């Protein structure tokens, strides 16, 4: 199990589609934002989760459809949410704990979605709809991450959170890339529904 702690601000500068996890650079936690966080931040987080949740299933379908056989007919085997190192989430925790766990999950998903997007542009270069949806989802995740950070920073003064990333797929074969992507999106669909309910 690979667990890496990622400096918070570096996570904020994570770019979608990055090929590799962000480097681990310890930074002293000095929590500051560029401008004050809005008062309806939690509401925005809920809306973002709802936005992600509303599109997660269609994204999943769009993905395995775009991969072609055998994926559509073997979803359970190929696209089951079998992501071993996915960050945990405890819905009954405190808001701070939930936000920290949410932060880790979003960071994990964001990195993984970046890998998937990168791989799909190679594997399915003409699946523009899928690319667009992956990018849009990554953008939403990016905004969600910003909101969570703003909340943690402004309310709980959390300067950094340890985060982990999924496996690097750059060295995998095509099928494995597709399979890992499908498994990740399946997991994403499952998790985001939980998160939307939790907040």
């Amino acid at each position, binding site marked *: 199990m690979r667990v890496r702690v990622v400096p918070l*601000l570096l996570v*904020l*500068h994570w770019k979608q589609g990055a090929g590799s996890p962000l480097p681990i650079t310890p930074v002293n936690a000095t929590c500051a*934002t*560029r*401008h*004050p*966080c*809005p008062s*309806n931040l939690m509401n*925005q*987080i809920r*809306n*973002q989760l*709802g*936005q992600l949740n*509303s*599109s997660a299933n269609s994204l999943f379908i769009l993905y395995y459809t775009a991969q072609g056989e055998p994926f559509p007919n073997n979803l359970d085997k190929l696209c089951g949410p079998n992501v071993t190192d996915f960050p945990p989430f405890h819905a009954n925790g405190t808001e701070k704990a939930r936000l920290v766990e949410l932060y880790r999950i979003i960071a994990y998903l964001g990195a993984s979605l970046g890998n998937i997007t990168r791989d799909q542009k190679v594997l399915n270069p003409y699946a523009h709809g899928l690319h667009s949806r992956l*990018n*849009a989802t990554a*953008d*939403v995740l*990016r*905004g*969600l991450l*910003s*909101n969570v*950070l*703003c909340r943690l*920073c402004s309310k709980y003064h959390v300067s950094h959170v340890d985060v982990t990333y999924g496996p690097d797929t750059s060295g995998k074969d095509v099928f494995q890339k597709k399979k890992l992507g499908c498994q990740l999106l399946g997991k994403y669909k499952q998790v985001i529904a939980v998160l939307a309910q939790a907040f």
Partner: protein
Amino acid sequence: MLTFTVFLLFLCELIVPCAHIHPESSVVQIGSNFTAVCVLKEKCMDDYHVNADDIFWKTSRATVSRDQYTVINRTSSSVTFLNIPLINVLLTCNIRMFGQINRSVYGIRIISGLPPEKPENLTCIVNEGKKMMCQWDLGRETHLETNYTLKSEWATEKFEDCKAKRDTPTSCTVDYPPVYFVNIEVWVEAENALGKVASDHINFDPIDKVKLNPPHILSVNNSKELSSILKLTWTDSRFKSFITLKYDIQYRTKDASTWNQVPPEDTSSTRSSFTVQDLKPFTEYVFRIRCMKEDGKGFWSDWSEEASGITYEDRPSKAPSFWYKIEPSHAHGTRSVQLKWKTLPPFEANGKILDYEVTLTRWKSRLQNYTVQDTKLMVNLTNDRYVATLTARNTVGKSDASVLTIPAWDFQATHPVTDLKAFPKDNVLWVEWTAPNEPVNRYILEWCVLSDKSPCIPDWQQEDGTVHRTYLRGNLVESKCYLITVTPVYADGPGSPEHIKAYLKQAAPSKGPTVRTKKVGKNEAVLEWDQLPVDVQNGFIRNYTIFYRTVIGNETAVNVDSSHTEYTLSSLTSDTLYMVRMAAYTDEGGKDGPEFTFTTPKFAQGEIEAIVVPVCLAFLLTTLLGVLFCFNKRDLIKKHIWPNVPDPSKSHIAQWSPHTPPRHFNSKDQMYPDGNFTDVSVVEIEANDKKPFPEDLKSLDLFKKEKVNTEGHSSGIGGSSCMSSSRPSISSSDENESAQNTSSTVQYSTVVHSGYRHQVPSVQVFSRSESTQPLLDSEERPEDLQLADNVDGSDGILPRQRYFKQNCSQHETSPDISHFERSQQVPSVNEEDFVRLKQQQISDHISQPYGSGKMKMFQEVPAVDAFGPGIEGQVERFETVGMEAAVDEGMPKSYLPQTVRRGGYMPQ
């Protein structure tokens, strides 16, 4: 290497300026002060022997006033500009070398402008599916190149700047996709050479600035159960999966222009369908819809594309308009009645009308039913009163019945509407009236176009009994005269109709009236014209204007009321050509008719008569008075005009004349050698014989011709004065009188060549007649002449006296008779032979018609004339020969014509 170094030094010397200006380049704010300093280099000063005193400044070739210079030290001079205007100039530092050569040694550009103002009214919008776009107001013009940069950031992250394009400095669209539910802070920075300023920051969630895509209407469905509803379904933005939307639904009937609004509270939540209620049956409705975020933040989407649907049918909601018209019928005791009705408008028909059901009921008779698909029905009715009902039917049901009472034939309509008015307004023709006192069931309005070319084909409409004002719902056209009839309908039948004429819109007449003259006088003319046909009036003729003018005069206009058809132009000039035309005017303008010309006479009617008749009467009266005067004073007049000729019978010439110079008497040549004659005698030779004269009478013929040609110059014996006057009648009577006075005792005298009246003859000749032969014997015995005439008429022998006739018409026989008698007395054989022969020859022709003989004589006149004046001398020679012949044969016969005056006699 050395050469290269020298070259570099040379180049350096060439490119190194003699001076420099501080500041190097300047952008100056408008209204501020600016100072530039020019510093000379020592080398230049040495080379050109100049210092700061030799510096002068120029701005774009214009030398700056030295008042603005300041010599700082030996090498530096400054120039100051106060309150810089808007400029963009080149400022140069110049030196004057050797006192006369000017040279620019350095220059800078000065640009003035303003610093940017703070951008205001920054707003952003996120169109669904697109990137965020923000726009702002620039503020004042800076006159400088100014950059506007849109800056944005999250609380944790800054985005790339969005630089506004040059051509759209007031807006910018960011490069990154919008991320909703994350607040973003946005501001604008404006920057130019004079400064940098930022707008206020705005912080917002992009979801609150979103403008969604419009929904797409999928269907509009009706319901058989409810004819008043339509269900609208649509698909809209994917945003509805994570935000709450509200909708704006509008609808209208197909032909309407205004939209009805579905109450907003009914569509304030996310949905994909809506049922619109309270619609009209069997009516096509058009829908459109838009959406936005439920909380009202953001922007309404554009309207969706319109979609339409038709509500289900319902039974006709109103009874059709129902009316009748009685056609002329030849059958006795029956009437042909045309029942007619209007198709229900769609909003009252509530469906497709399948047919109409008509019932007719006469008092105490059975019902007659008709099912008609048309909108009229012709029935033959008796003269009794009938009640007709009409219902319209569609697939759902029947309308209410429309009841119409057709009165009996002897029904007297009464109670018309009053104060009927018709006027155009808002492009329709309104009709207004005052209701009768009696309760009215409804009103029937009929109208038709009045035309001289086509019959009046009425259209009609029905109004409720409570209506007192409506407009005509027909296809009315402008410039047509409509005859409008309003008939109130009572329970027992129709009332008296009232009529009025009206135009939907008037126009100028399309043709002007044709004017003509009815009567033209010396100073006035009565013009008349016909009323314009209604087809060309195009409106109510309000008045006419008559324009008339002379050829050179100004035009005069006279307004005439439209009710007139003639007008009298007065104060006209006589004997003048007038041009007149006429224009007819409606409320919208006029139209000229053709021009008509007429000429006034020189005199008024009867004026000539008034002048001529009195003048003629005066002339006649004067003449009459003159005649009467002459008649009364005839003796006195005769004495003055025709003085008494001395009566030869009372002459005593014979007593006092010493001797008679016979030669003088007979020889005219001797007596008047110059050929002048003091008196004239005319001898008429008359012949009834058409035959030419025999040769032996030619001499006489020539004699006669000579007499004709010499009339007026001959002198006769016996004191004949007839030819001395141009009035032979008076002369004759005078001569008669004279002849009677002379009687037979007067001796013939020789010619008394004395002057007539007071004229003195050139030769005073006094002669005495030695003859004792009675003078003018025939005048003393006219019965002889009558006898001769009788003889002439009885035995055809022309009397001798007809040969020679004195040109005294009333006494022409006198000289002839005397001549005849004298001829008998003259003892001359030749003379007698001559006369006898002449008489005999003429008597040979006496049997021929007198008229033809007369014609023969006329035929001879041209023969005489053929000699013409040019041979007058020759004629006179003949005359002389004739005279000489008479003289040679014996003593000259004093009673014979001495001369023949030319032209004094024409054969009768």
